[in-house]
């Protein structure tokens, strides 16, 4: 395939090597090629935030990145947040306890965004949380539970730093 390339990248700590079409977006690479369907696609043009991943530790919309651009880089998806298969991250626990999700469609993007945010700002105000998730749309919760979960997660993470 002339429009294909071999890429090697790390996703959630695991190294992958694949041949991909150069026009393949990162979100489709994660979902269809690696089977990591936790990353959701809502709008595919950079508006809803559901597809948010961390690229080299920074949140980014995976529908606006080509898989080839991630050659040699480090990606973290929602699947990489929990410390193990049978334990949740304190942020995920807080989402469960505060009804931070209903259908769960927006949740992967909320979690990845908040992981970056709470790392930079471990003791945020409610307004700062609302600004942090302003690029993530949720049709279900009205955001109240999400904001409460983020604030509580900040406390939990300060009490028991990961």
């Amino acid at each position: 395939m002339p429009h294909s390339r071999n890429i090697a990248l790390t996703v959630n700590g695991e190294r992958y090597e694949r041949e991909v079409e150069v026009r393949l977006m990162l979100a489709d690479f994660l979902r269809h090629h690696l089977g990591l369907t936790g990353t959701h696609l809502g709008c595919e043009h950079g508006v809803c935030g559901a597809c948010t991943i961390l690229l080299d530790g920074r949140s980014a919309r995976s529908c606006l990145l080509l898989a080839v651009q991630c050659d040699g880089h480090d990606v973290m998806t929602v699947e990489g947040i929990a410390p193990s298969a049978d334990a949740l991250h304190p942020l995920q626990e807080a989402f469960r306890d505060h009804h931070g999700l209903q259908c769960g469609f927006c949740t992967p993007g909320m979690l990845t965004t908040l992981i970056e945010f709470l790392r930079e700002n471990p003791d945020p105000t409610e307004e700062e949380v609302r600004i942090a998730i302003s690029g993530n749309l949720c049709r279900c919760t009205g955001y109240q539970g999400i904001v409460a979960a983020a604030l509580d997660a900040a406390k939990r993470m300060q009490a028991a730093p990961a």
Partner: protein
Amino acid sequence: MKPPPFEYHDPRTEAEVVGLLARLDNAKLLAGGQSLMPMLNMRYVLPDHVIDLNRVEGLSYIREAEGALEIGALTRQRDLEFSDLVRTRCPLMHEAVRQVGHRQTRNRGTIGGSLGHLDPAAELVTVATALDAIVTVAGPTGRREVPFAEFPAGFMMPSIALDEFITAVRIPLWRSDHGFAFVEFARRHGDFAIVSAAAMLEADGSGRPARASVTIGGATIAPQRMRDIEQGLVGQTLSQQLFRDLCESCRALEAIDDIHAPAAYRQHLAVVLSRRALQAAHARLNGTAVLPKRH
């Protein structure tokens, strides 16, 4: 949605980019991808070639030299937001960049990409207009500099040839005790502004403005310097009444009329926002121009 098929190039040097641009037809430059990628996904653009600038070395930096800030074209908006140099030396840009999109888009979006895309409502385009930025472009005959007043050739049309690309932007600095403000009206946090206003004031010994810059973004096909307001401020005793009187001239702007807002509404916003920006810039005048650190 899938981008259409294209050939992908990821050059490592400025010279390679220039070489590719000279050789390839129907090529698009990919910087932060926050505008081009949605356009590709929706197939608004059908390039035969995509030239990815993200691996070109030496295009990401912020430094101060000879009374100006020099910023590499691939510098991310998020790096501008967290740069102490930008915050302390060019606080107007700091205040504006915090209103650009969302953290996920600022992590990727670049200053060169914003300026090259030239959306009239983009905060950084308005800031570049307000600050008389100078854009450096590289092409087959080397580098040349374009003053921002000559940069827009039309609606979203920068005066850059097809075989040229933006490598850097230089922002001449104002005295550190200047007053500044960037205000905008958008329907949702992070949206493009329907209208924005940037104001800067520098005082003479008696506290009256020796220099003023007032820019309206989003109202017209490219951000517009309001020269009559600027001239009306210089040497005057500043007052609410003066701002009120001068800013009325924004009602005569040749405003855009589209699904987001009718022209008359944009003109009205321009009047109100230019006044608010001047009031805020005045309040900061002779204080310290530095904005507080966030977090």
